[in-house]
């Protein structure tokens, strides 16, 4: 088994959004460079990781992919706790998945840490002829709600890498800022493997090195 635990930061990120918008394929594209048109529906929660570099630091993203169907909300919302980032995904060809973004934001407000970084992701940008949500509209909505915004295609892989890079970089900035403010004594991020970062207290020292963060 791989032991790639040489990292400076471990960030927990969740993927949320309506059923069928392509959350699982975004994740498999980012973590394994795979896309599967017929991938099975996600039941409950699934998990994958990938390590990237930001500002010379090694950041490990622990990404939890959630089932989109309403019935699973009670199960999946438990995974928001401790998440420092969320990708809220809709399908640019399906208006209802965009209209539901507000409901998903409320889910996050109710269950996630208040400082969670949220990125609005319009997926399936390859479906140009079926587009039902304009880029402008989603961009404006994101700006009004303080979210970052990007359009992606897990199928042709456009913008998938930048999307994850961007949110992980943002999380890193917030965390390092918090750490600066908090001062060294209050537990600024140290370069040691397995430090789980939460935004409320820059370093969560209660977690053991190798364990999960939820």
């Amino acid at each position, binding site marked *: *088994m791989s032991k790639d635990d040489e990292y400076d930061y471990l960030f927990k990120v969740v993927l949320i959004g309506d059923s069928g918008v392509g959350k699982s394929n975004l994740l498999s594209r980012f973590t394994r460079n795979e896309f599967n048109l017929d991938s099975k*529906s996600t039941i409950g929660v699934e*998990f994958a990781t990938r390590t990237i570099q930001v500002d010379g630091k090694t950041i490990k993203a622990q990404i939890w992919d959630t089932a989109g*169907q309403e019935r699973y909300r009670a199960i999946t919302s438990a995974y928001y706790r401790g998440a420092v980032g969320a990708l809220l995904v809709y399908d640019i060809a399906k208006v209802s998945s965009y209209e539901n973004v507000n409901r998903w934001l409320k889910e996050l407000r109710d269950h996630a840490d208040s400082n969670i970084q949220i990125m609005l992701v319009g997926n399936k940008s390859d479906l140009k002829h079926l587009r039902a949500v304009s880029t402008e509209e989603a961009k404006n909505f994101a700006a009004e709600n303080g979210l970052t915004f990007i359009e992606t295609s897990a199928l042709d892989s456009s913008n998938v890498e930048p999307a994850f890079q961007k949110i992980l970089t943002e999380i890193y900035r917030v965390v390092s800022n918090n750490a600066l403010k908090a001062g060294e004594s209050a537990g600024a991020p140290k370069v040691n493997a397995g430090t789980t970062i939460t935004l409320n207290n820059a370093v969560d020292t209660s*977690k053991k090195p190798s364990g999960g963060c939820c």
Partner: protein
Amino acid sequence: MLVSVAELNSKAIRFKKFEALLEQPIVDMDQLKKLSWMGVPEEIRHTVWKLLMGYLPTNSTLREKILAQKRGEYDDYVQQQFSDEGKAGLDQALVHQIHIDILRTNSNIPLYQSTVIQESLERILYIWAIRHPASGYVQGINDLATPFYQVFLQSCVSDDVERTDVSLISKETLNQVEADTYWCLTRLLDGIQDNYTHAQPGIQRQIVRMKELINRIDGQLYAHFQKEGVEFIQFAFRWMNCLLMRELPLKSTIRMWDSYQAEGIEALSEFHLYVCAAFLVKWSAELKKMEFQDIIQFLQAAPTASWGDRDIELLLSEAFMWKALFGSSPQHLKNNNPNQ
């Protein structure tokens, strides 16, 4: 694969025993269950399953009548919902959810790529959902419909149903398979409905019990999971929600359901708990060497692609053993400390 003469003989003997049982005017269900536990021959599986599910009456003289009645009843439901007038009243969000799930159901098996089969499965799920509003359609129930569908359809074709030419099957036959699947799925779900109601309490309970069971069966593995921060819900939720179907090849599930039905459909979740425990303990040696993320990723994609009936039978007998050991004394499994 080489099959020994002895094996062929014992298969033939078993088949004869089944035949003798099924020919009785009133089928001895205890005998049928006993025999089915060890696996049901494919040629007669459709009839045996319908009996075990309580869909066909044990009294052979009543069977034709009951079957016609049930199939007629289902046809009425279909007419109400899917006739030209009825279609306008369909719940579009539900139709969509079921449709996108059926498109990605068993996508590795040609049978399920057929539009005719997909539409048939969609009708079953839609009708079940609107007639069971307490839970409604929940993702994963789509998987549970397919073993019935496949077994019943297999009895109507001469080649392997997974790659059969659907266009050669008559509409009437398909309608019957659809109706029979609907009723057997309904029976199955009746016993586990609280797996699918709000917050899915049935599954939550099962997971707590499984955790306790593992603590007793394999304390080292339990301790290792504790140390690594692995929560049972992180991997076992899907095992309960889809009855391990996502973990196993469909043909293995079908073999497994011979024994599940023989255990008694009322006892299904009870027995399934022990099967899940056996399934986890199977990988104990590997898992104990892994860290959190490797454990979760391993269990999300357990290496069962090449499993055959023998692997399933081993799993089932282990589960049977655990159940005999711990099941008769439920006190052993009582949760004294809910926070444990």
